[in-house]
């Protein structure tokens, strides 16, 4: 299949998924788009928002529109790693004798909903690390691969709420994007009420399956990135580090640790999906900027002053983006505007 046809198919699938999810989820177009960007980028998404905003419903609807194995894990403080990874259990053979058999946990799905992930203890949260990064788990010295596509969608309440365990930085860094679910508007709220209180519910059609998702992920990775765009991504990530010369004052003041290289990967991958959705085969600065907040906001570790001031990482990132020029270095004696 030609590249143009594959790109066209990509856009159609993406549009169909968006349409199917929108049958159930009112509003949240940006969240839906971000979730799908994560899906086709091969990353994982962290959805943050107060309870009742439709996070779980969104993920559940997505799983229904994809012909993928879906599993849901409700994270609680007493949830243990073995509960999600799986464990070896003793099984009696029909002919007598006993042996250990691996009983896969809920993580062995293709779309995993880690609901309220910050309610589990850090130990359990860390059980997700290997799966999210290496698409495999190791139990009892035995390495178990996860079936692709493997897509973790975690939801969490704002970390300052009671009875939560903030995700460790290493865990946060595994998420490609962190999407903030905001309150619906008045019109959306009315629509939500109307849809959820009537007898019949919308049926979601399956749009695509695992192999097609994998093909699309491959297509995304083929999208070329021009050198200036790569340089822009690099400069953007470096500017979030307080010890970097290009860091603005806001970063120096409120950020303790900046983005890791995973942030740059997230920017480029997200930019590639944005480019394909825009009908292009190249990543633009605009594509990178479109995913910059979601890709970097959870990678900034605020300093004490930042925490005390209640600074939103988005403010810092917007400041960085506003200072970073997409124009080439000014060439001498060119007229204004060039």
């Amino acid at each position: 299949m030609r590249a143009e046809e594959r790109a066209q198919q990509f856009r159609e699938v993406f549009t169909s998924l968006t349409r199917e999810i929108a049958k159930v989820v009112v509003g949240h177009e940006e969240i839906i788009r971000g979730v799908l960007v994560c899906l086709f980028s091969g990353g994982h998404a962290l959805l943050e928002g107060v309870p009742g905003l439709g996070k779980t419903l969104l993920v559940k609807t997505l799983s229904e529109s994809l012909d993928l194995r879906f599993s849901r894990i409700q994270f609680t403080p007493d949830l243990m790693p073995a509960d999600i990874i799986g464990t070896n259990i003793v099984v009696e053979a029909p002919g007598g004798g006993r042996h250990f058999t691996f009983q896969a946990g809920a993580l062995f799905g293709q779309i995993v909903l880690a609901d309220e992930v910050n309610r589990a203890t850090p130990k359990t949260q860390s059980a997700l690390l290997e799966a999210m990064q290496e698409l495999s788990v190791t139990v009892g010295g035995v390495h178990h691969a996860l079936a692709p596509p493997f897509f973790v969608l975690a939801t969490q309440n704002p970390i300052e709420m009671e009875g939560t365990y903030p995700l460790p930085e290493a865990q946060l860094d595994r998420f490609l994007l962190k999407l903030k679910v905001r309150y619906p508007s008045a019109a959306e709220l009315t629509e939500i009420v109307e849809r959820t209180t009537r007898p019949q519910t919308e049926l979601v059609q399956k749009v695509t399956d695992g192999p097609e998702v994998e093909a699309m992920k491959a297509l995304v990775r083929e999208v070329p990135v021009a050198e200036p765009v790569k340089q822009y991504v690099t400069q953007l990530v470096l500017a979030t580090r307080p010890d970097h010369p290009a860091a603005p004052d806001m970063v120096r003041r409120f950020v303790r640790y900046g983005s890791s290289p995973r942030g740059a990967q997230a920017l480029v991958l997200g930019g590639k999906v944005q480019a394909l959705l825009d009908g292009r085969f190249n990543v633009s600065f605009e594509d990178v900027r479109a995913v910059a907040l979601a890709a970097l906001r959870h990678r900034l570790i605020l300093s004490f002053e930042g925490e005390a001031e209640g600074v939103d990482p988005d403010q810092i990132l917007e400041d960085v983006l506003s200072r970073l020029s997409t124009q080439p270095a000014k060439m001498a004696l060119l007229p204004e505007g060039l």
Partner: protein
Amino acid sequence: MDDRELIRATLSSLSRRLRLVRALSASVRFLVVGLALALAPLLLKGFFPVASPLAALGLTGGLALLGLFYGLLARLPLAHAARLADGRLHLKERLTSAQEHLALTDPPDLARAQLAETAARLREIRPESAFPVRLPPEARWAPPVAALVLALFLLPPLPLRLPAGAGGPTPQATKADEEQGREKPLEQKLVTPAVPDELFPKTREREAQRGPLSSRDRSGDLAAVFRDTKMSQQRPDFGSFIKQGDERLKLLARPESIPDLSRDVTQSPYQVMIRRMQEQLKAGRMQGLTWEQIERLLSELGQSGQRFGAGGLPEDLMSEMEGQGAGSSDKMLDALARALNRLRDRDEATRGRGRNLRQGPSRQTGSGQDRGEGESDQGEDGSPGGSLPGKGKSLQTRGDPTSRIGGEKQGSTLEGDLREGQMEAYDTNLSGPGAENPSRLPYMDVFSQYRKMMEEALTKEPIPFNYREQVKEYFRSLENR
């Protein structure tokens, strides 16, 4: 044209256009700078009349050309042009990516698709609109600066002065000139008359041996006229000048009686010339004169700026001279001398009339009642008495009113004192309204001051060497009077 060629051609076109825009911008900016810098040499046009305009032109044109060539020839990476065009045409880095893909010999599928998509997009737009030709903001300064440069170029040089010692009149000397009301320095008033070569053969021989004169020597070198005469042998006698200065300064008290400086100085060559011609004739070194020669001589003298103008002598003097000079060359020269003297007297009479408009009738004889007559040529200030004391014995001090004011009701008359000999001062007691407040002007004190100033000026040699002889001749002419 396939996609790759189209993109390559577009990039080349954009690069060329960007160079052009840059060249225009740079040349205009450099032009403005050049115009501003050109003001400096044009301000000094008075000192460097030829070099200044050339320097201004060179600065302006040179810098404009420099900017033009810099804009055209300076390095301009293709990727830079592609990036700028992406930004200007909202191509979302299509050209930048395509420019990278053009370098690939076997681009992957998506790179090939990217080239095709970019080419399709380029066909829909006008890439050259990415870089519109527009003047830089600095161009708004070009018209006023250019107007200023043009004005400085066309207008006469500004009256700037070189520092002292750099040549030309010193500021102090100029200021002194202005204070004394002089229009021009003496040497600027003097004009070297054209003297026929045959009159001064020795001088011409010396000049030929000496070689061409410098411009300084040549300009106003009136002394050259006297170089072959007795006057050239005389050294400046300042002691005599100072001794006789009082009498001369007395003459200065009556400006109407002072011969015109330039006239006297330029008159002298006539006399010398005529005397030399007479000597030449007597010695037989010159053949007989003709009226054509004399007319040509007068014409040349007139063209050199002498008093009677380029047209020669007035008609009546000319005819009178021809009538008196018929017969021999000597008579012709005598007639010429008389005609020139007549011309001089006529000019002097004209100047006297001009002064009398302000100062009363000239040559009014001051005659006190029963006191005898004052010196006739010194009673010219309209006073009833002469400016010098009369010789009569009458005690009546009031003189007759002049014809100008006689009988009129203007009651201001100047009283003359009955004294003998030289006066140290003049009483200017007025009758009439001012009689209650008599005054006495210490003229001699003032003259002494002037004399000291003149002596000091001569001692410090502010007069060029070549003009000393003329100054000396001038005062000698005063002495003869």
